[in-house]
């Protein structure tokens, strides 16, 4: 046998070996998880941990605003395996319609809004729970606002500032901070038990103190680079990015239902139809994250495994490590849950 025969045999063995390996290799499933932007920091770590435990699964994480997360399936017809949003109440609103795309959700984590800033932000040495709203009305303080037309943290910020009037017993807080700052003002209607905050169709700044951005995530870079002094941010996002964080009183931070102790509740109403499928009104309620698996999920088995990992497995620990408080999972429709998940939730 000469060298050329040996080389030929080696090539044949290599080709056959490669073919056998290719035919018998474990197939990889791509699991599409679409989630709220404020979950992304945690989800990056969860993706890594889950893939290490499940080498046959490639988790693809995609972030959007919460309404957009659900629209991907409900209105745009995209395939997704797991949907997770920063406001559980959006799931029945957008997913239980006709045709339905899901019939259950699981609440799995909470959050609260507070004030993010830098150590060198204007008046940082003065700010605390009793002074923030007065500091925010000063002419030389630059504030960021996430656009309430596009982002849940934007309309929740306006609710917080309005609820602060009841908590601090000061009826001018909202006007002192936002008055004269927009070409068309944000009007507030007061009823005996509720403030209705009306967002105009065109929201443009004019006073020079407010910087409006499309999402709270975009305010982070502005804050880090000194473009603004303060912004309302979710606690987990602020902590994860190493910013100073001032918690607000629990009655106004929308982290729980303590705001019901105040004289008024709050509601934000858009002056126009933003999406065909939802009434453009958002009522104040606690910030609780919810998830679901759409009926159309291409990989139901893997989706159930991933949800179990999130709410009862290592994912729960990762949420805590990345500053997102978890809660005992709760559901709105125990009877509709997949059997695998029923074991993890009290009926």
């Amino acid at each position, binding site marked *: 046998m000469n060298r050329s025969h040996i080389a030929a045999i080696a090539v044949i063995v290599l080709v056959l070996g490669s073919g056998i390996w290719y035919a018998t290799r474990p197939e990889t499933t791509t699991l599409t998880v679409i989630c709220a932007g404020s979950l992304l920091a945690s989800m990056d770590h969860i993706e890594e941990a889950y893939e290490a435990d499940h080498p046959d699964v490639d988790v693809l994480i995609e972030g*959007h605003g919460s309404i957009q997360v659900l629209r991907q399936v409900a209105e*745009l017809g995209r395939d997704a395996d797991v949907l997770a949003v920063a406001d559980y109440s959006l799931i029945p609103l957008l997913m239980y319609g006709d045709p339905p795309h899901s019939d259950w959700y699981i609440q799995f984590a909470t959050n609260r809004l507070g004030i993010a800033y830098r150590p060198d932000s204007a008046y940082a040495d003065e700010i605390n729970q009793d002074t923030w709203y007065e500091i925010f009305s000063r002419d030389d303080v630059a504030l960021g606002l996430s656009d309430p037309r596009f982002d849940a943290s934007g309309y929740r910020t306006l609710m917080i500032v309005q609820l602060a009037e009841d908590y601090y017993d000061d009826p001018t807080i909202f006007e002192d901070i936002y008055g004269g700052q927009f070409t068309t003002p944000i009007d507030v209607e007061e009823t005996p038990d509720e403030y209705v905050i009306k967002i105009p169709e*065109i929201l443009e700044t004019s006073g020079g103190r407010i910087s409006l951005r499309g999402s709270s*995530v975009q305010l982070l*870079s502005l804050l880090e680079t000194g473009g603004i002094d303060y912004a309302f941010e979710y606690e987990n996002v602020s902590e994860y990015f190493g910013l100073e964080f001032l918690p607000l009183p629990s009655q106004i931070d929308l982290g729980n239902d303590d705001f019901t102790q105040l004289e008024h509740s709050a509601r934000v109403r858009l002056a126009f139809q933003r*999406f*065909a499928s939802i009434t453009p009104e958002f009522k104040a309620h606690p910030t609780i994250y919810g998830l679901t698996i759409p009926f159309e999920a291409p990989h139901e088995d893997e989706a159930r495994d991933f949800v179990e990992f999130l709410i009862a497995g290592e994912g729960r620990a990762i949420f805590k490590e990345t500053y997102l408080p978890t809660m005992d999972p709760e559901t709105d429709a125990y009877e509709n849950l997949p059997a695998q998940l029923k074991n993890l939730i009290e009926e």
Partner: protein
Amino acid sequence: MKRWFTLPLIALVATMLLTTGCITGDGESVELTYVGDETQTLTLDDLKDMPAVTGEGGRKNSVGQITLPMEFTGVPLTALYELDREITENSAIRVTAPDGYSVTFSYRQFVEGDFITYNEQGGEVPAGDLQMILAYEEGGESIPEEYGGPLRIAVIGPDGPITDGHWWVRFVSTIEVLTMN
């Protein structure tokens, strides 16, 4: 010409015409509802008869992911507005997709091109000259549905600006000319 040759030839020619859009005529299949003082329907051919501009633009979504600039061609929103009435500082344009998603653009946006712009790393940069168009071509081709076509909003400029993705309304089906109070 024998029938066995004629029929396949006709089929071949018809197939070629269909695939090149000559029979279906994209202009016939694309309809835009235009709401001014009166409501009318504009086809793609109607839009292509209007002054066209070409330029590059990219977008950044709400969590910071960037779609790098591509070349878009379409009709400036200012030209669409002026089909119905003269532009003033109270002018605005509402753009709606079939699923009800709608965005209203102010005078500062659709006339002056007032948008936040970003570099490819996502950091804010000073804006150059920006223009809003109703785009019907991306990279010289019709915009496929998976890229938000056949009609979508694009914000373009000579330097390929990157702007917020929520302004780039996809599947545009209706344009309303507004005068705000």
